[in-house]
């Protein structure tokens, strides 16, 4: 069982991939995925003031427990110029 993490914009070019899959263990939470991704890609800045974290296209708290096949996305604030 895995969850996927999707990268867009400069996250995609920094990681050189648009998606990775992470093994899911019992009680894996959003914050665990953030830690995993940050360790794997130290150049990414994923603090909550910099990006919004979405699970299956909904903004989700950091302690939310993930389910198999969940899709995690990082979204910068977009206000529409």
């Amino acid at each position: 069982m895995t969850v996927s993490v999707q990268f867009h914009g400069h996250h995609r070019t920094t990681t050189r991939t648009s998606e990775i899959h992470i093994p899911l263990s019992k009680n894996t939470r959003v914050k665990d995925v953030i830690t995993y991704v940050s360790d794997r890609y130290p150049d990414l800045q994923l603090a909550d003031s910099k990006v919004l974290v979405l699970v299956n296209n909904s903004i989700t708290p950091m302690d939310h427990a993930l389910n198999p096949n969940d899709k995690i996305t990082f979204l910068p604030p977009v206000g529409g110029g």
Partner: protein
Amino acid sequence: MKAIKNISYQPASIMGGYTDRILRLDLSSHAVSVQSLAPEFKEKYVGGRGYALKLVWDETTKDTRYDSPENILVMAGGPLCCEPRFPGTGKFIIGTISPLTDTFIDSNIGGHFSSLLKLCGFDALAITGISEKEVILIVNGDEGTIEIAEAPSYGEAVDDGALSYGTALMQELNGDGLDENVALVTTGIGAANARFGIVNSLFYDKRRQRIRSKQAGRGGTGTVMRRKGLRAVIVRSNLDRIGANKPADDRGVKEAGSSLKKVVSQMDRQQLRLSSWGTPVLIEYMDKYHLLPVNNYQYGRHPDARAIFADVFLNRYFEKKVPDGCYFGCNLACAKGAENVTLRHGPRAGQQVGVDGPEYETAGAVSCMGIFDPHFIMEYNWYCDEYGLDTISMGVTASFLMECAQRGYLSEEEAGYELKWGDVEVAHRLLHETALGHGFGKVCGLGVHRAKAWVAEHYAARTGEPVDRVLAELNKFAMETKGLEFSMYISKESLAQQGGYGFALKGPQHDEAWLIFIDQVHKELPTFEAKAQALKWFPLIRTWFNAVGLCKLPWIDVRHPEAAKTDNPAQNQPTLAYYVQYLNSTVGSNKTLQDVLDDSERLYILQKLINLRNGKGTRQSDRIPLRAMGPAFLNEYEAREDYYDEWLKEQLNGVEVPADREARHSLLVKLRREAFERLCDVVYQEKGFTSEAVPLPRTIEKFGLLDERARNLLTSFGVMDK
């Protein structure tokens, strides 16, 4: 250059961001005058859009059209433009009666023009009349001269191009040495032939060693300028711009600017990266969330969209080592550009050009025609700028006509060729024909609203169907409201953005409210009331930026690190505090954010009055096409069938969803229409309007605008007694 009139003047000094002077030009008589403003004028109308609104309200009537001699074309910065120590201070507004909407339009534009105009001693330039011969206006603040001259000719190819003509003019006036203390506005041949002509703002960029351009794109301001017989306005001043506003509190200006620049510097590279990627960065996110207006807004994404993501432009076209920006001191510097792009099509094929752009909107307009070719986007960008055409209205009108062909409303014989989606050759042909006023381009140059009527009449004549019935079908996918083409976002799945487009006073341009993400993605506006509050708050704060001469992007697209801790992160209030500090420090006021919103609401109400007077102010004028509310046709429903089926299930809350797909589509359309109408009711109440969208007398009186004209107008709508 043949002078028609040359006068000397003493440039007024700037104090607290204002000169309190408007330069008036009557092109019918070639009269030049200086209008002095009483202090109450700036207190009530602020600057920029506010000045344009006041002049249009006072000097035009309900019968004034874009080409009427009394129509007034206003170019105005604001008290906060010009200062390089604060980011984004090169903005100004061009306001007038629009050839597309027949009511007030304004479009904001970057560059050095308004700052130099202010240094020449003028808060605004107001132009009336129509000149028999095409002329240019030269304002030289250094020499204290204002000259009207016959527009010089440099040969047809140069004369037809807004960029080419401006460059030739600047070179002639400056000798061979270009510099940053001269700026100009120009129009191209497209503005003479289409209703969506733009005004180009040209300035010299010494880093790129060429003239660059920004555009007042929306609503046909360039068409008005061209119709008046004004080819260009040149302003010159060698005065230093740092501190030129003579702020009341220089230290406060410096502090506010430093604070904002620090946030931009820290946060942009971790958020959208506008400083290196420019606004094309949005393409990827719009594609992901089904917001890219593919094939006239039928579909929100496309498998080929990857070919036009921002990193493609970054790696293939943008000069990465050059810090960009449309004005001094802006460290967001999002005005990306490319050098030595070889044109492959059109009358300039084979020529290498510098391209200023693309912006997201231009790439979106090309996706609207079903094209995902980055080189075509660069060419389309350059040709539209050179011709003086709005990339948005051009793309939306072309794609509307393509869909008319797709659905059988427009024959190949009528167009002269097959209007196919995704065909670069076809798109080029239609673009050049539109700019030059040739062939079917004459229909495209009308814009969607008038082209729709043309198609309906011809189809009705061909088939015998009643025109009204044909129009009703075309209205489902003709992406215009109030006569203006939609900007480049699909609003089907965001009711708040449907309101953002429908209620926008100028027509469906997102600069009043862009609520898609906070509504559709963040889900921060779950109720009608929350949507209504956002649909009041955002247009007011956004209007303020257009009144004071500032760019919105450092506020709206770079989130302050403290914003996440506030009640409403999308409002980005920690950053707005810097703007309020900058305002107070410049003009010497002691305003709060609420005071700023109140100032803005006065302007909003004034614009509403003009719309009412000109027949574009009631509930009927706020209605949007079906495609802006949901899937207009079954093919759109089928493209996201699982999503729409799920949406219906949630809405019906246990009631059985129809088994038949067409029945599900019809039900969804019914629910979407009902939701929009309910939103209208709630928003009008929030704004202090009647259910027909007419402001109540007390709403107008609150802002000191309930004079005899306003009373008579309200009486004509039957609301003075309410």
